[in-house]
């Protein structure tokens, strides 16, 4: 999986440390960690599959007014509909907060997000660290988020992603 392609060692190091930092912050009550990364405009984030978005260069994102927070997972606080961006490992910074504006789930051969229930099932495939103890809390958090914003299917190709992403991010930022 490509997380980031860049010659900027500072950016590469930050992404690497952010990934490490994400493992140090498990989801708490009312939170869910999903294997999606934020792409941001005006403080509002669209969560997208890292594997798909990894092929889209940062310079293309920047040219379209989008900032990609390169990481492998995102922590969502369902109660506040906020995304808590993991600071890089070793940083004393508090997690930055982004508004949860939408999400794309990986492409599936079936029309698997057609109903809220199937959308919850798709998102649960992306949830990490689900245990017997936190399964109910995680499932309820995901259901609350799906009720608020129904996920879309990620376009299958990099070209299709580039085609749809700018408008999608613009839409969530203005909603």
């Amino acid at each position, binding site marked *: 999986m490509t997380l980031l392609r860049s010659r900027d060692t500072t950016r590469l190091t930050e992404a690497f440390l952010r990934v490490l930092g994400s493992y140090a912050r498990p989801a708490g009550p009312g939170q869910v960690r999903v294997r999606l990364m934020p792409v941001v405009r005006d403080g509002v984030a669209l969560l997208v599959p890292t594997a798909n978005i990894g092929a889209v260069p940062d310079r293309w994102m920047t040219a379209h007014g989008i900032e990609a927070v390169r990481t492998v997972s995102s922590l969502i606080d369902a109660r506040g509909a906020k995304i808590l961006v993991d600071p890089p490992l070793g940083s004393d910074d508090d997690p930055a907060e982004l508004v949860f504006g939408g999400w794309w789930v990986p492409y599936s051969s079936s029309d698997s997000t057609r109903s809220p229930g199937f959308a919850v*099932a798709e998102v649960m495939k992306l949830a990490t660290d689900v245990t017997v103890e936190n399964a109910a809390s995680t499932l309820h958090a995901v259901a609350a988020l799906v009720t608020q914003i129904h996920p879309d299917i990620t376009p299958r190709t990099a070209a299709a992603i580039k085609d749809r992403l700018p408008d999608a991010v613009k839409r969530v930022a203005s909603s």
Partner: protein
Amino acid sequence: MSGQPSELDPATVLRAAAGVAWVPIGDEVVVYRVVPPYSYVLNATAGLLWQCLDSTSCLAEILDDFAVAFGADRGEVEKDCVPVVRTWLAHHLVEEVDGA
């Protein structure tokens, strides 16, 4: 399906198994099993049946209530619902309540 009980005692009282969480959403119910991780999406009728497995009511009582609620033949209700419950048992989504 292998592993499912051939008979289901009408006096059986069932509940969600350990390690199984569920949530109603819209007119569906999502049932999530932690190990191995998997979600089941139940439609409105199956979801209602699921929510009736409350650790208290026996299967026969639930089917009686279903027949009344839907104005359906009791035998048809049993024919429709019992295989569903057997499937849930086979997938370890529900378990019998001991001593009920």
